[in-house]
């Protein structure tokens, strides 16, 4: 029992409850002193939640070293945590590999929760009329599905960036390990606050939280804004750490054009998260202030402008989709040559294309606002800048096809997910330009076509590469590999079902199905499509369930795999799995190109024999 309460996570949660209670108490007390009506739920809950998050961070122990530094005491530079065993996964560990796995676990938890929300309201949509949900419940679940999945994806890419980047570049850890732990543990109370909106009245705005609707929504709206602001701060600090680590901790000889593609993708992603995230935080905080203090930023009655919110919001939220997909596309480029046994086609162009997508991504946000009343002269420039994104993305597809062409391809589970990722992302990519082109977009705006399009990009750009990466690096994390048969079952359940689901979404969208609504007209004649979609959604869920069973089974009883399982050239596979505490015992030097598979005599990394 005592051991249980010494776990960082448990202490953090207890402190969070305490902090929330104290916050509510303080605010009520202040209102009493000021002579106002003491109990007003909204400010009390907001202040309580904020204080609760801070207390959580203290309770979990990520602030301890910083408090010691501020108090002028010494702290240990490199801490060896190997004695702690599994317990270090539940506390404030400084090891980037532990933090990576913590992120991964949190991501899976969030995505299972978000997916469950989807299953609930997908069942509701199986036929017309409201079956078992009220409209408000439907709206809340639909909104939370969107935002919880987004946070899950952000956490998931942080998982792979944290776990892989220091290993791929030959660093012993991140540049700022304490900041790394802080960033991870901030995401936990953020997720809790976000989900707490479910019991605080929910919110009915969709994940975008547009005012003026979000100004009038229940208190759950505030929890959404606060949770996302905190999660955003967590990704800002995480991406700062990634950029500095990549700039400063590379192994000797790893010049920029010898970095793995995933490292290029990570830096491109991090540039967006580091900067643009502040603006979604700002826009959400401005709505919070509008609700709390009556500041009329987005209230035309007070001289405000609701369109301003959309500009601030989409300035982050469009590049955010590149944050979601760039690491996934990087993972595809990273793993594809291993299974094709051929050099990555056009390495330099692929490396540059990630940066290009990130930079163009800053200039395209207005295409979300073609139908919103944005100044008309902005439409055409945004249309062209958006279409321009297709060029560097096309470079990536060209490279993948060139890599696969005449390769000696083997079809292990990770490779299957990579190929599915490419196909699904192609579907998502081809359905993008109709939404970027003003004339077609005015017809497609806010229909299920958009829903189908972005589910394709998210699955192709994130979910499939993410599963591929788990199957691929699981042996590195645990020393055991995931079961191949269950992996293939997972794949064959999920992939066809998903493709059917997304194509049906686009079909009903073009036939007139609006997005974000709980009910639809039976006269539109697509009830059968909705039934098929619902069945497909449950088959996807079944696939994910098979995956989770596989993980729990393989972690204990899976086939032992400590060597270079995939016959990769990457440095992390040249040492036995799982990785030791501070990564490489012998430092390595980069002496060749990273992806020269199948070229006789080529060497990528050379380990120093003695130090």
């Amino acid at each position, binding site marked *: 029992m005592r051991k249980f309460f010494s776990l960082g996570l448990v202490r953090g949660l207890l402190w969070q409850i305490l902090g929330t209670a104290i916050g509510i108490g303080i605010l009520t007390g202040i209102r009493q002193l000021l002579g106002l009506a003491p109990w007003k739920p909204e400010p009390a809950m907001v202040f309580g939640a904020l204080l609760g998050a801070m207390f959580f961070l203290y309770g979990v122990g990520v602030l301890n070293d910083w408090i010691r530094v501020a108090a002028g005491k010494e702290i240990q530079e490199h801490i060896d945590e190997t004695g702690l065993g599994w317990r270090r996964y539940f506390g404030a560990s400084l090891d980037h590999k532990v933090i990576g796995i913590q992120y991964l676990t949190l991501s899976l938890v969030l995505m299972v929760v978000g997916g469950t929300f989807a299953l609930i309201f997908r069942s509701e949509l199986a036929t017309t009329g409201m079956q078992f949900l009220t409209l408000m419940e439907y709206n809340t679940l639909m909104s939370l599905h969107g935002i919880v999945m987004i946070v899950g994806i952000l956490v998931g890419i942080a998982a792979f960036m944290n776990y892989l980047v220091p290993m791929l570049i030959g660093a012993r850890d991140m540049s700022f390990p304490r900041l790394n732990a802080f960033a991870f543990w901030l995401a936990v109370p953020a997720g809790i606050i976000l989900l707490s909106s479910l019991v605080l009245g929910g919110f009915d705005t969709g994940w975008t939280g547009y005012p003026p609707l979000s100004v009038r929504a229940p208190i759950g709206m505030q929890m959404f804004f606060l949770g996302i602001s905190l999660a955003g701060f967590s990704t800002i600090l995480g991406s700062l750490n990634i950029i500095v680590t990549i700039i400063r*901790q590379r192994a000797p000889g790893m010049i920029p054009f010898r970095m793995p593609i995933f490292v290029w993708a990570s830096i491109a992603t991090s540039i967006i998260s580091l900067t643009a995230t502040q603006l979604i935080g700002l826009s959400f905080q401005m709505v919070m202030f509008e609700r709390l*203090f009556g500041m009329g930023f987005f209230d035309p009655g007070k001289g405000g402008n609701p369109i301003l919110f959309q500009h601030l919001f989409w300035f982050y939220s469009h590049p955010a989709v590149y944050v979601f997909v760039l690491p996934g596309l990087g993972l595809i480029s990273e793993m594809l040559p291993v299974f094709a046994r051929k050099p990555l086609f056009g390495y330099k162009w692929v490396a540059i294309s990630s940066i290009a997508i990130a930079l163009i991504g800053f200039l395209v946000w207005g295409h979300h606002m073609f139908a919103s009343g944005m100044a008309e002269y902005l439409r055409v420039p945004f249309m062209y800048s958006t279409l321009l994104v297709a060029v560097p993305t096309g470079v990536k597809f060209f490279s993948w096809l060139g890599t696969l062409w005449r390769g000696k391809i083997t079809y292990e589970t990770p490779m299957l997910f990579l190929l599915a990722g490419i196909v699904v992302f192609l579907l998502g990519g081809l359905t993008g330009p109709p939404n970027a082109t003003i004339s077609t977009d005015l017809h497609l705006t806010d229909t299920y076509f958009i829903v189908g399009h972005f589910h394709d990009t998210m699955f192709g750009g994130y979910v499939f590469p993410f599963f591929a990466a788990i199957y691929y690096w699981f042996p590195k994390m645990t020393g055991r590999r995931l079961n191949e048969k269950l992996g293939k079952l997972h794949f064959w359940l999920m992939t066809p079902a998903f493709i059917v689901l997304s194509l049906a979404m686009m079909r009903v969208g073009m036939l007139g199905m609006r997005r974000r609504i709980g009910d639809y007209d039976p006269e539109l004649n697509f009830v059968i499509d909705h039934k098929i979609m619902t069945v497909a959604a449950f088959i996807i869920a079944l696939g994910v369930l098979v995956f989770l069973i596989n993980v729990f089974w393989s972690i204990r009883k899976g086939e032992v795999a400590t060597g270079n399982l995939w016959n990769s050239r990457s440095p992390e596979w040249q040492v036995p799995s799982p990785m030791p505490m501070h990564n490489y015992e012998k430092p390595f030097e980069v002496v060749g190109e990273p992806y020269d598979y199948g070229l006789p005599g080529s060497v990528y990394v050379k380990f120093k024999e003695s130090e």
Partner: protein
Amino acid sequence: MEHQHKSSALLLGLLVFGALAVLTAVEFVFALKINLWQFLVLIPLIKAGLVLYYYMHISRLFEADLDANHESYAYKLLTNRIGLWLFLLSDAFIFGGLLLSRINLLGLMRPDLNQVLGLAVTSILLISSFFANRAEILMEFGERKQFILNISITIGLGILFLVGVVGVEWRLAPFGPADSIQGAIFYVMTGFHAFHVLTGVIFLTIVLRNGSRGLYSAEKHWAVEASVVYWHFVDVVWFFFYPALYLIGTLAK
């Protein structure tokens, strides 16, 4: 030789401060005489450039590593500097977003604020930046007592600025946050900035306490440098916020 080097560094700090003061005065007078917004955008940019180069030492980011050992103090120092500057870059986007919101919502109108008070708090923050610069230079030469004196003045001026904005200006302003869009913008911009000033004051106070206990030396004083660079950054933000709130445009009714 060292003495000469030190006095020339202090003199440079004074010269930069003089230039900033003159530019601020010109900005103020120009705004009252001929209100050209282009001019009121240009001057803060020049001021920011001066501070970025001479006070915040942005060129230090591009120095080559003298020690390639990743565990050495010199190597970690540059790593820390890059980390801090990336944080400032990120933070700059929040303030940029606030400025854009102000332009979008108010355009060429400005809220009705007390000009004397505005100029006073601006001067206070500018002077505090000068003393912060002195504190850092004196630490570089290991003059602990002088360092403590200068950083204490910086903290005092920072607190004075906070009192001026939050304590006085927020009371004098003829509108509350909920009254008009001018009020909303004014309180959110000064509020975000004041929050940063407050964190800067706390940061400087921690550095003052640890410095007076002799934890920093001429060779190793990253915390001093970080707190001072952060302080200058907060000042640079105010370079843009001051004309945006007090000077640009005509008075809103």
